[in-house]
């Protein structure tokens, strides 16, 4: 075993440099004032005070959370039936459907989002078709609808695949047993399938909520310049305003929020299990 432990050493060094160090730098920036150099630290909480005392930022945070929750909920309600149908399909059909879900993920997210710009814009695909029937034009792009659509479109495969996996892992004999004990299809689903697929649902929620809450280029491209989410604020602090300290502080606040939500998810998961599950 010893020699294997030594083999892990380069990886440990790599992780320290590439993962832990940047994190520490973010923490350092968040708690210091602008204009530091390596030698002089001016430790301060000013960045955090600024964020929580400015109603604009809080408004943006609230909106970001709301968009993320809405996206996650939509992904869940649209994704669960899809996952269920795929899990029920047999052999070749199942493979084909899983493939159809995964293929878009092979293409860069940015490119796919650009495609939606083309579809939704004022002279885009939808409005052109509507124009043939003498309808529209409807303004689609740069609305809440467009942003949510873009997010759901980009993140729903994560939800579907997680739920699909937990559904296929489930032993079919549970359903036979439920049917044997008098449960019809709906009852079997509600009492057996749904509770047993909860772990998949929870990891699906995590996988969708995390990128949704911090996404910045989907709102930028589909929501337009005025549509600001917390991801956009962080981005602009780093890239346009050049205030790395404030950007780092917001990132840190987001990280804490995400950690809290992960903790709650875990807790819910545990409770689900202590009812008698695995």
């Amino acid at each position, binding site marked *: 075993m010893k020699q294997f432990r030594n083999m892990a050493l380069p990886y440990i060094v790599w992780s320290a440099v590439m993962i832990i160090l940047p994190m520490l730098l973010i923490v350092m920036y968040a708690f210091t004032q602008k204009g530091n150099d390596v030698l002089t630290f001016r430790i301060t909480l000013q960045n955090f005070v600024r964020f929580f005392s400015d109603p604009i930022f809080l408004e943006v945070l609230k909106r970001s959370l709301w968009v993320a929750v809405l996206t996650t909920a939509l992904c869940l309600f649209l994704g669960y039936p899809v996952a269920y149908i795929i899990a029920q399909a047999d052999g070749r059909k199942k493979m084909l459907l899983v493939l159809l879900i995964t293929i878009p993920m092979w293409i860069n997210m940015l490119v796919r989002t650009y495609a939606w710009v083309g579809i939704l814009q004022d002279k885009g695909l939808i409005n052109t078709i509507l124009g043939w029937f003498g309808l529209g034009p409807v303004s689609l792009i740069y609305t809440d609808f467009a942003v949510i659509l873009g997010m759901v479109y980009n993140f729903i495969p994560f939800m579907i695949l997680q739920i699909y996996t937990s559904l296929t892992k489930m*032993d079919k*004999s*549970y359903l*036979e*047993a*439920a*049917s*044997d*004990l*008098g*449960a*019809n299809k709906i*009852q079997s689903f509600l*009492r*057996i399938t749904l*509770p*047993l697929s909860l772990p998949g649902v929870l990891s699906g929620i995590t996988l969708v909520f995390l990128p949704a809450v911090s996404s910045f280029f989907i709102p930028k491209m589909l929501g337009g310049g005025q549509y600001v989410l917390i991801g956009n604020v962080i981005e602009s602090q780093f890239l346009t305003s050049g205030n790395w300290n404030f950007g780092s502080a917001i990132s840190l606040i987001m990280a804490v929020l995400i950690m809290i939500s992960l903790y709650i998810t875990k807790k819910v998961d545990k409770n*689900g299990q202590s*009812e*008698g*599950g*695995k």
Partner: protein
Amino acid sequence: MKKLIQFKNIVKEFDGQLVLKGINLDIYENEFVTLLGPSGCGKTTLLRILGGFLSPDEGQVLFDGTDICDLPPYKREINTVFQKYALFPNMNVYDNVAFGLKIKKEPKDVIEQKVKRMLKLVGLEDYGQRRVNEMSGGQQQRVAIARALVNEPAVLLLDEPLGALDLKLRKEMQHELKKIQQEVGITFVFVTHDQEEALTMSDKIVVLKDGEIQQIGTPTDIYNEPANEFVARFIGESNIIDGVMVQDKEVVFEDKHFACMDAGFAPNEKVDVVIRPEDLDIVPKEQGKLKGVVKSVLFKGVHYETIVETRSGTSITVTMHVSEGKPVVNTEAGEKMSANDFYLDIEDIAELNEAGIIARADAQAWDATTEDWISIHKVEYEIKPEIGTYPVTFSTKAGTMVSAQMFVREANRIASKEYEEEIYAVNFFKKVDEIKESMALETDLRTWANASAWSLEDDSAVEITEVEYDFNAETIEPGDYKVTFKTEGYEYMVDTTDKHEVGEVVGLLFGPEDLHIMSKKGSY
């Protein structure tokens, strides 16, 4: 008793393969019925059709007189204990058992009463709040039984429910299941491949094979009067001897006439005679109805399983010529070479070729220092399809040469009328080293002598069960040795309490009631 379930000509096919070939079976109220058979016999398929998880391609399943084929499982008055229990992992023991009652929307206090009573019946009254996967296999088994029984079904189906338990627990659960069945007084349909389990628990056993019922009867019926050879062998190890029924109550086997209790066969009909090992007695040879030699004795815990051979099988003896046989050495080329003389059947000469000669002579050439194999370049021989001795010379490219003799003889085979079989082997030449280096001597002797045996009726292979020889492979010297190959003879397995010596000549005693005659046709 009332007929509760009737299977009428059930046929089921999977991927073009007939799994059930027209099953007709009646199951009565309060019966403990066991479907017994080897894996793949269709027993589980039949059970799943009754449970409603499969529908038959043809035929009807009548429950209390009405066809239930189109009824989904949840509408049947039948509950199942699944092979791997299928307890719901997201619920505790109590909720698992209460599942069916909650679905039926029974009042809460009624549910509680019933669940508690059922947990008590299976001896788990204190385990209600346990998680199911924290329980042992035996406990999970009990929960599964309670979960099914709490719904007060008319029939309980059990699909190999004891298969996953260890031997001791399985025995315990067998008794417990029987007890529970008597207590609740409903029909149990039990599926197993374990004949002992079937014999101890059932009121009625249904033996299945390849989707067909072989026999239906009580455990005693099935054990004592198996309908055919398959049932006899499946139910327990048994002696099954070919015989002829000369007339009612008289059977001939081993050329002797014996009285038996069976009647109703055609005159001189060929039959199988079944004698259970425990029905045979070993007595001094002059008192026995048959005489034989003890071949082996195995201690089985409570008794000895003694094999007595009344007639030895077909045998053939060949001579093995062993020589010192040092290889030919070619110092110039640095090569060594060897070959053996060999015997050849006159009828094989027509098909003889170089490769065949090299193989028979076991001709080899190798590098003297590296021991790498060198291919044989040339085989020179002249042979006529007549009895005689012919030389053959093998040589390599480098010019190393070795010669051997080919002895052409009539085929050496012996036929046995008694067993309708024939055995064949040839004399052969070997070197001391080859015998000393043999890893599996009996197999090698069979290969070297080309020994084989076959049935004269249908040419199917007959196993050579014994190889006898009179030398010690470790210390063998050049010379001639006898090797004998033998097929299996008439052997009887006898369960005895006394230990007999191998080689002892003994008599076998049995009464007319110990002979069970079965038709060769195989139907019941």
